Every structure is written in structure tokens, then in C-alpha cells.
């Protein structure tokens, strides 16, 4: 047993008896508040409040555990309760899991994103389970008149050497009256019997039987259905519209325009404004609204340059000009090439890169480009709202309720305690559902109609709305001396509208003379976090570039990385390197071993390798590629990941396999292009998604065995896929691939 200490455990846990007997245990978030604040920028209380009904144990031994974070496929409805159940020491089959209500004070940040769920809740949930277990022991000790340290627990049962035993349920009511323990004893990872042992998805049966789980399934009596008509292009706005024909259509209740934000509204960090004025079409049923919408007659006009008021970084507010130009992909590319030549902002400099490049015997310079990407969650954006003058209930798929509530409160002019946000399961998120415009839209519509309304986007609405992965470019340069030693490294990256460069990432720290620079081009095309933001481009560019550098140096690509990492570990350059070279090395070595890299039996394979660090974890892949019917396909992938303790291994493997397939799909086919401001891809007939027949035949996933606290998994395996695919393409075709998407062939129609 490990003892954990916390100076702020005074009101760590609160407990109360359940009406029908049993215990309701509440635990405080605050011991982790500091870490959480860093992660999410939420204002958490200095002294925590209790988590009501977090754990319930009934007299018949049912253990109910609430999941604090919304589920979007990352398995939190299973993995987070597993952490509680482990320390509580209960039989997993007696555990019932429910999604918690939105309450950032009681349940913590409740933020799904940044590969943070397990990382952020690991300690608080272990503490909650351990405290409850110790209270049950104390209750039994008092009941039996024995010393608490003579009592052991196993799978929801308490026992004493005298032969006395009791199920948790029998002691639960008494445990609720026991003082909350000050010192918690947590299990050593070697003693885990739930964590690190695969458990099936707690919502599995509901999912395969089609039970209502998702936001789009949400329904209440008398609910209306709404759709929005947004401008057809970025840089266009509403001029006028005629509702007469639409209003004549059956089932239509109302058609009106509305504004997302009032003039001068100060937008928070996740209040991206794509279109400020839209038309709402509201009716009785989805098809009636879809059908009537076709009769809408609208005139649009250019917005010209506009202004946005944004909350300032670190207080205050700032105004930004959003350019009005109607963008076309070819001109975006030209503009990026032009900016790439201009002086840029220096992000990091080590040594004397100018001299290194001046003295170099050989300079390798390559430029990489990647397009905008749409998230394309399978469940299109949707949300429910019922706003009355007194209160608002909103429900649906949302990654970050805590970021949406303040804006909702301002927009509706209702205090936060009159706003109830219910989080449904999400049909995918990938970052898109951290941005809540669709919540504000439906809230506006419901408020105007004073009725319950569900807003549904069509696929076209969803794909053409913006909030994309930005368009990026980066030029990498490497300087080699006459002995082919790497003496200088430079990255200059930019994008529309943000620069992708992570200046303190590898190979920073491993090269004496290093320079990182970035630049940005403002745009009216809105962007948002997309699975491993920036990393998803950097890993593609940097890891392909390193492959070419290794080739020029006459070195094996894994060996070159290991040499550089050894340097970074033993004698790092600079002070702010944000990766742990030892863990990075560990992943590469595991990958080398498991893939049989360099082994004679694999000599004929067309293989590419890449590894990357992001979101606190390390991942690498070896991709084996083949040509079938004249097109490249990834046949097999070997993956190695270090994400610390793996809570639910089989689900974790699923996540990594999914990240690999997602990565291959986006690297090969993903692109959102523009013509005169309009998205050229509007649905899955012209936005190509990877399909069943295009997935690898095998993806072997290996985790570094570790007792390090979990460091996140949703994002880290995704970025290196792009680099490994690019490098395998070189081996397969003899050509280097610098521009995504790598493959552009017509897809089979279904």
C-alpha cells in the first residue's frame, strides 16, 4: 500500500445515508484543483464542494458510479468508473454507471478533450474509491468491536480473522456516519484487479440495440425541430429573404433570422463565430423542415472586413479584424508561399543556426503542406433547448459544458444556476464539440419561440460550417557537416489562420543549433481543435523530414532518432524541452522490437516509421504498404505507445487502432478546399473518408509497461500515422510525398 498525503483533505469527502439504507458518498475535487486549473482554465473553488451521489452503495450491493466526463467514444463511461471501483475494491459486475450532471464545482472540469479525461481524474477517482473503502472498514470495525486494521476487503466484502464477514451493502448506511478518513491508502499498481484488466463498454448493449443515447435521439413532448440556413460561403452574409413559400409548407411553425452574438459581444475562447446571422426554419418534424427549407428564397452579400471582440489572453478584451475576402484554395496556397518567405516570429533559438547553415557541407530543405480538414463526426451537430423566461434546459452532445455555460448565460440573460446542461453520448467529437455555436443557436431559437426545440444540422450544414483543422505549411531545413553530422535544424511554419509550430518539441533539445519560427494569415474561415491540434500536421512534416535527413546521413531512421534522443537525454540543448527523452526512446525501442525492424525476414516489406510526442504521451508506428490495383494501401501496422498505466487495455487498443485508421484516412484522402469562399466538399460523396476495404488488415498495438500515472491516449497515436504513411509511400513508390492528401483518386460509390 502507498500512503498518499494531501494537505487539503479536510473536507475531501462527505457522506450521507440513502433513504432506503446504504451510503451516498461525495468527494471533493479540490485536491486536484490546481492541476485541473492548469489543464482547463476553469475557475475552481479553493475549497471544494462535495460530489453529490458520486458513489452509491445500496443494501443489496449495487454500486452506482457517476461518470463525470461526457463520452464521445474514448471509453470514459467504462474507464473512469473502473478507477473508482478498483480502489473501492468491489466486484465490477455489481457496478452500474451513469453519466453525471453538469456541475463543474462538484464534478470537476468535466472536459472531454486534450486526451485529458483519465489523466485528469486518475487521482481524484482513486481517492474517492479508497476513502469509501476505508469508511466501510471503519463501519465494520465499530459493528464488530474489532480494530479496523484487522479487516480486509475483497470484491465488495469485508472480513475479519475471527470469521466475521459482511457485504459492503450491509455496512453502507453505517459507513455514511463515519468521519471521512484523513490518510488514504491507495493500492500499488501491482495489486490492481480491475484497472489494467479489460472491461467491456458499459453502454455496449444499449449501443448494439439502438437505444436512445445520442443528442440526436433526445426528445420531449411537444418538441419542435429546427434547422438553420447559414451563408453559402465564408465572407458572405444575409441580405434579404422571403419566407412566404416556406410558411405555406405543411408542418412549418416559423421562419426567422437571428443573430448568434449581439453587437460587440466579447467572445470567449470557444465561442468561434463563423456566421453571425442565420435563418431558422422551425416545424413539427425533421422531414417537414428539410423539405420546406428547399423553398427558402435568400439573397446573400459579401460581409467585407468585419470585427470580432475577443476575450483577451490574460484579461481584458481585444478586437480583431476578420478579412472579408472570399478565399479559393489555389490563392490560399499562393498566399502561404508568399508569407513563408517573409520574416517570421522567432519562437525558439539555440546556439548559432545562421553560422551552422552557412558552414554546412549539405543543406536539406523541404516544404510540407496540408489542407483544412472537417471533423465529420458521424452524428451531425445537433442540440436540444427549452428556454423559458425563468430557466433553460439544454441537452445534447458537447465536449466542454463548462466552456459553453458562461456564454449561454450571457446570450440568454439568465444566471448560470438557471441553466441546466445535460450531456448525452456523442457520436464522435474529435474537437468539434468543444465549440458550442449549435448550443447557442438552438437556445436563441427556443427562447424566441418559448418552446422545446431540437436543432439538427444536415451533413451539408455540418461540413460547410467551418471550425476546421487549419491549413498549414512548414519548411524544414537541416544542415550537415562534411562528415554528415547534423549541425543545424530549422523549422518555419505557418498557416491559415494559425501557425502549427511546437517550438520545444523534438528535435529541439537534440541539436546544438536550432531555430523555430512561425507566422499566421488571418482568415474568415473558422478553425477549431482537431484530434491532436497542430501535432497532427507537425508529426507528418517533421517525421517525413527526419526520414530524408536519415537517408542523407546514411543512417537507419530509427537509429537516427535514437541517437538524437540519447543526446537530448544525456546532454540536452536548451531548457524548455517539453518531452521526456527516456520515454520517447522506450517507445522507439519497443516499436523496433515488435515490428522486427531491420530483420532479414522483413527486408522485402515497404515500411515507413514515425514516432511523436504530444498530449503527454509517446506513440510510434511502423506502416507496411502495398500497391493493389495501382493504388497504395496500408497492409499492416505495428504500434507502440507509452501512455503510463493503461486503465482498460482492450478499449485502449481499440482507440489506437482507430487512431491509425483515422490517420491513414486523413493522410490519404482528407481535404476541405474552397472556391470563392464556399467549401467545395459538402457531403460524403465528395469528402472522401477511409472505408472498410481501405483499412489495414492488421494493427498490432503494444503498450510500454509502466507504473507512471496515465498520461492520455485519444490523441497521441494519431499524429505519427501521417509521417509513417508518408515514409512508407516513399519506400513503395520511390517518391517523397510533401502535400496532403497524398492520394487523390475517385472513391467507389456505395
Amino acid at each position, binding site marked *: 500500500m502507498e500512503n498518499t498525503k494531501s494537505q487539503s483533505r479536510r473536507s475531501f469527502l462527505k457522506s450521507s445515508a440513502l433513504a432506503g439504507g446504504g451510503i451516498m458518498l461525495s468527494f471533493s475535487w479540490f485536491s486536484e484543483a490546481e492541476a485541473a486549473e492548469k489543464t482547463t482554465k476553469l475557475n475552481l473553488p479553493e475549497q471544494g464542494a462535495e460530489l453529490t451521489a458520486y458513489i452509491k452503495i445500496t443494501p443489496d450491493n449495487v454500486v452506482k458510479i457517476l461518470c463525470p466526463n461526457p*463520452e*464521445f*467514444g*474514448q471509453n470514459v463511461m467504462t474507464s473512469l468508473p473502473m478507477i473508482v471501483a478498483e480502489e473501492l475494491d468491489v466486484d465490477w459486475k455489481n457496478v452500474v454507471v451513469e453519466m453525471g450532471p453538469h456541475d463543474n464545482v462538484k464534478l470537476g472540469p468535466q472536459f472531454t478533450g486534450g486526451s485529458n479525461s483519465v489523466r485528469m481524474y486518475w487521482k481524484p477517482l482513486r481517492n474517492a474509491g479508497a476513502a469509501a473503502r476505508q469508511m466501510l472498514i471503519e463501519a465494520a470495525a465499530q459493528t464488530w468491536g474489532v480494530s479496523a486494521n484487522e479487516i480486509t476487503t475483497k470484491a465488495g466484502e469485508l472480513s475479519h480473522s475471527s470469521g466475521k464477514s459482511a457485504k459492503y451493502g450491509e455496512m453502507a448506511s453505517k459507513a455514511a456516519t463515519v468521519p471521512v478518513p484523513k490518510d488514504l491508502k491507495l493500492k500499488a499498481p501491482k495489486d490492481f484487479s480491475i484497472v489494467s484488466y479489460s472491461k*467491456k*463498454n458499459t*453502454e*455496449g*448493449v444499449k*449501443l*448494439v*440495440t*439502438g*437505444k*436512445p*443515447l*445520442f443528442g*440526436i435521439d433526445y426528445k420531449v413532448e411537444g418538441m419542435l*425541430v429546427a434547422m438553420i440556413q447559414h451563408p453559402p460561403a465564408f465572407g458572405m452574409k444575409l441580405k434579404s429573404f422571403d419566407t412566404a413559400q416556406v410558411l405555406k409548407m*405543411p408542418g412549418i411553425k416559423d421562419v426567422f433570422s437571428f443573430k448568434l452574438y449581439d453587437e460587440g459581444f466579447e467572445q470567449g475562447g470557444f465561442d468561434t463565430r463563423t456566421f453571425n446571422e442565420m435563418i431558422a426554419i422551425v416545424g413539427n*418534424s*425533421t*422531414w*417537414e423542415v*428539410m*423539405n420546406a427549407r428547399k423553398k427558402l428564397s435568400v439573397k446573400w452579400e459579401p460581409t467585407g472586413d468585419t470585427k470580432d471582440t475577443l476575450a483577451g489572453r490574460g484579461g481584458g478584451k481585444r478586437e480583431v479584424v476578420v478579412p472579408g475576402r472570399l478565399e479559393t484554395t489555389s490563392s490560399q496556397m499562393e498566399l502561404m508561399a508568399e508569407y513563408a518567405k517573409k520574416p517570421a516570429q522567432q519562437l525558439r533559438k539555440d546556439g548559432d543556426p545562421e553560422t551552422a547553415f552557412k558552414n554546412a557541407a549539405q543543406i536539406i530543405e523541404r516544404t510540407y503542406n496540408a489542407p483544412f480538414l472537417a471533423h465529420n*463526426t*458521424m*452524428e*451531425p451537430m445537433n442540440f436540444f433547448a427549452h428556454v423559458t423566461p425563468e430557466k433553460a434546459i439544454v441537452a445534447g452532445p458537447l465536449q466542454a459544458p463548462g466552456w459553453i455555460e458562461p456564454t449561454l448565460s450571457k446570450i440568454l440573460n439568465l444566471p448560470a444556476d438557471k441553466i441546466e446542461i445535460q450531456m448525452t*453520448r456523442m*457520436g*464522435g*467529437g*474529435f474537437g468539434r464539440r468543444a465549440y458550442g455555436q449549435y448550443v447557442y443557436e438552438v437556445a436563441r431559437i427556443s427562447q424566441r419561440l418559448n418552446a422545446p426545440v431540437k436543432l439538427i444540422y444536415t*451533413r451539408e450544414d455540418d461540413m460547410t460550417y467551418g471550425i476546421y483543422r487549419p491549413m498549414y505549411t512548414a519548411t524544414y531545413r537541416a544542415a550537415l557537416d562534411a562528415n554528415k553530422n547534423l549541425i543545424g535544424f530549422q523549422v518555419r511554419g505557418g498557416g491559415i489562420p494559425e501557425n502549427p509550430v511546437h517550438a520545444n518539441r523534438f528535435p529541439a533539445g537534440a541539436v546544438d543549433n536550432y531555430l523555430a519560427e512561425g507566422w499566421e494569415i488571418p482568415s474568415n474561415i473558422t478553425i477549431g481543435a482537431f484530434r491532436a491540434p497542430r501535432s497532427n500536421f507537425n508529426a507528418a512534416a517533421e517525421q517525413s523530414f527526419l526520414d530524408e535527413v536519415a537517408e542523407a546521413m546514411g543512417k537507419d531512421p530509427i537509429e537516427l532518432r535514437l541517437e538524437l534522443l540519447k543526446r537530448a537525454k544525456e546532454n540536452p540543448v536548451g531548457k524548455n524541452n517539453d518531452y521526456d527523452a527516456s520515454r520517447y526512446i522506450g517507445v522507439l525501442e519497443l516499436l523496433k522490437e515488435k515490428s522486427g525492424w531491420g530483420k532479414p525476414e522483413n527486408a522485402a516489406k515497404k515500411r515507413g516509421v514515425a514516432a511523436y510526442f504530444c498530449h503527454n504521451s509517446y506513440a510510434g508506428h511502423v506502416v507496411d504498404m502495398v500497391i493493389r490495383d495501382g493504388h497504395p494501401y496500408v497492409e499492416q501496422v505495428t504500434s507502440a505507445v507509452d501512455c503510463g498505466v493503461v486503465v482498460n487495455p*482492450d*478499449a485502449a487498443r*481499440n*482507440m489506437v*487502432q*482507430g*487512431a491509425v*485508421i*483515422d490517420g491513414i*484516412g486523413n493522410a490519404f484522402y482528407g481535404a476541405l478546399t474552397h472556391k470563392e469562399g464556399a467549401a467545395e466538399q459538402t*457531403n*460524403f*460523396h465528395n469528402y472522401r*473518408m*477511409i*472505408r*472498410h*476495404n481501405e*483499412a*489495414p488488415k492488421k*494493427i498490432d498495438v503494444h503498450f510500454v509497461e509502466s507504473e507512471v500515472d496515465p498520461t492520455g491516449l485519444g490523441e497521441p497515436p494519431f499524429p505519427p500515422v501521417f509521417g509513417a504513411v508518408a515514409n512508407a509511400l516513399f519506400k513503395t513508390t520511390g517518391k517523397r510525398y510533401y502535400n496532403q492528401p497524398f492520394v487523390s483518386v475517385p472513391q*467507389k*460509390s*456505395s
Partner: protein
Amino acid sequence: MASYNLKINGKTNKVDVDPSTPLLWVLRDSLNMVGTKFGCGMAQCGACTIHLDGNAVRSCVLPVSAIGKQDVTTIEGLSEKGEHPVQKAWLEHDVAQCGYCQTGQIMTATALLKKNPNPTDAEIDAAMSGNICRCGTYLRIKEAIKSVKQ
């Protein structure tokens, strides 16, 4: 508006809807059967797959007026609690991530297995390539299909 008597999962359901209404929205809005999902509205993603006389069909482009006396089977008709062999295989392989596309995947797989109880990998590829999974669970879908013993 017109009246239709639809045979869904062995039961007759009377609905009054516009003849152009896709079966998807009849199921979801009129009959509260929400297991059939909306993904694209143009038969490109397979989230809305149902069976029409045993064939896998995209309900988002199937007007209610075209159904007539044909038998409709939805995910809700496979089994109440997930006892159908294909659902069991999905649970055994813990296929789902977000899970949104999985009812459509299961309906396509079930129709395939009914006609071809032992499909090859190539036959599975051909049958399943119309169903997009954004989370990338394709390998598990294939493993689950191959594990089903009819």
C-alpha cells in the same frame, strides 16, 4: 399527407406522413425508433441501414411511399437485449467507440451473413465499404463478422 400501414419488425404501424418522407424520419420522428441513425441523407455513409425484405437498404433515401407490403426490419427488431448472434459478436469484440454508426454496421453485416454465412475477407470488404465508421473500428467489425456462427 397520406396514410401508410408499415410492417416493421413483425408489427403493423399506421403512420400519416407526406409520401416523400424517407423511412428514416418515419422511424425516428413518427415511431420513436431512434436506433436507425441519420448520417448523410444521401446513401453515402450507411448509418441509416435497415432491411427491406431482408436486403440492406439505406432508409435516408427510401420514401415511405415505396415500401408497400415489404417487411421492414430495424436494429430494434434484431433483439430486445442484444441476443442476436451479430449483436453478441459486436459485444464480444467490444467493437464500438462512439458507437453512432454501429447499428447501421450491424444491419449491413446481418444482411450479408444471412445470404452468405461464411464470407471471405473480400466479400466482407465489398459488403461493408458503404458503412463509414469515423472512429475507425473497421478491424473489429471484420473480426466480429467472421466470428458469427450462424
